[in-house]
């Protein structure tokens, strides 16, 4: 590492622009797929809670598929495979609207939804049965007892796992590189191959990733402290 020179990257407008755009793209993918994953996870959870064997099977299959197939492969299947089955009009629309980014959001979001919904489900399952009974005995309906009694506790229980999986999701955004999204990892590889300042380029990206991940963990820690059930050990 003859001369470590971060400024060689940061001061060069084209490089700093690439880095900035990469970071933006990464955050866009992470945020987009997080929202999708949360929404989908809630849907999966609700479907799974309905007393319907078939619905339960379908959700179990969904979860099983997404947990047993590598995320990168899911991404490839979406981008190369499923995309090819779409009607021309949709293909065209997607291409104009940055298909790579949209499809990576879809792939990562749907994948992580499986993890999120399992986290929420075990959060729900770890509530003692007496809670639901008490709510019913007081006359709360299903929705009411979910809303005021079960979910507030389930979410608290699930926060640590959800935070860990959110960090995973954020890190997985780097896989979008493999389908040509110009996110952070893609950007630093590009910068590296143009500037040949490997150490500086990777160092930058590593620090950026680490800071974001630690931030997510910190927010998670804050959330669970903030909403900790008072008095619980």
């Amino acid at each position: 590492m003859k001369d470590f020179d971060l400024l060689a990257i940061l001061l060069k407008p084209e490089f700093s622009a690439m880095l900035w755009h990469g970071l933006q793209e990464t955050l866009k993918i992470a945020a987009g797929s997080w929202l999708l994953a949360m929404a989908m996870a809630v849907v999966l959870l609700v479907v799974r809670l309905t007393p319907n064997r078939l619905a339960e099977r379908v959700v179990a299959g969904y979860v099983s598929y997404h947990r047993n197939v590598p995320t990168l492969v899911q991404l490839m299947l979406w981008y190369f495979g499923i995309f090819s089955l779409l009607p021309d009009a949709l293909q065209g629309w997607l291409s104009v609207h940055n298909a790579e980014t949209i499809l990576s959001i879809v792939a990562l979001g749907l994948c992580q939804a499986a993890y999120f919904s399992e986290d929420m489900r075990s959060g729900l399952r770890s509530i003692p049965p007496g809670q639901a009974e008490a709510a019913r005995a007081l006359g709360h309906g299903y929705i009411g007892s979910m809303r005021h009694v079960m979910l507030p506790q389930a979410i608290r229980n699930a926060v640590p796992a959800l935070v860990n999986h959110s960090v995973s999701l954020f890190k997985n955004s780097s896989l979008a590189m493999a389908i040509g999204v110009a996110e952070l990892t893609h950007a630093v590889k590009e910068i590296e191959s143009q500037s040949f300042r490997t150490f500086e380029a990777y160092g930058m990206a590593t620090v950026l990733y680490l800071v974001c991940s630690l931030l997510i963990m910190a927010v998670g820690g804050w959330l669970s402290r903030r909403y900790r059930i008072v008095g619980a050990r």
Partner: protein
Amino acid sequence: MNPVPHPAGDDTMILFSNINKWYGDYQALADVNAEVKKGEVVVVCGPSGSGKSTLIRTVNRLEEVKSGQLLFDGHDIHAPMSSAALNKLRSRIGFVFQSFNLFPHLSVLENIMLSPMRVLSVKRTDAKARAAQLLERVGLSNKAGAYPAQLSGGQQQRVAIARALAMEPPAMLFDEPTSALDPEMVGEVLSVMRSLASDGMTMMCVTHEMNFAREVADRVWFMDAGRILEKADPETFFGSPQHPRAQRFLSDLRAH
């Protein structure tokens, strides 16, 4: 939701007619016929596994029955009905659990206010005033802002009673309310129950506290193997139990 015609008189609060209940192929309740009158305090006792919890839980339909009719304040609890109607009925039946089952994420006050506000649509200020009043009654005014995990077992159970009372139920059911408590806390809970009884609350209470039964109960029901074997006033029951099973049960208790 209208009272159905039934053979019980106007002074009947709970009426069990031919109740049968099965868990798989185990019969937990067999042909139970019994009545709790308005203002009456009934203590249910019997050996472990005899079906006491099952019986009391059928009253607010936490357990479904296989056959029979159960009237609560004139309403047929186990009739087919919408879940909204069932919830409405349940909200009028006070139930106190052995393990308190307070909502740990809510403060004591919020525990008491939640159901009046959400189920009965009582206004927040009214719910709060009523909750404060109930806390006063169970002697815990100073704990309004505390969370369940910060309370002793006895305090939690008293909050649970206040929470049930907040729905202004015409009757209260207790399933072994003191058996999860350390001995020094049993007294405080029993004394709240005693005061409820003396205020004329209709109560059905599963308990092993025989002193409480002796002093407070109007009737004692003795259960074994899913049947009520004996119904008597406490003097008779404790003095000269009729059924041999009850005799054995009482003598076992005294051997302690």
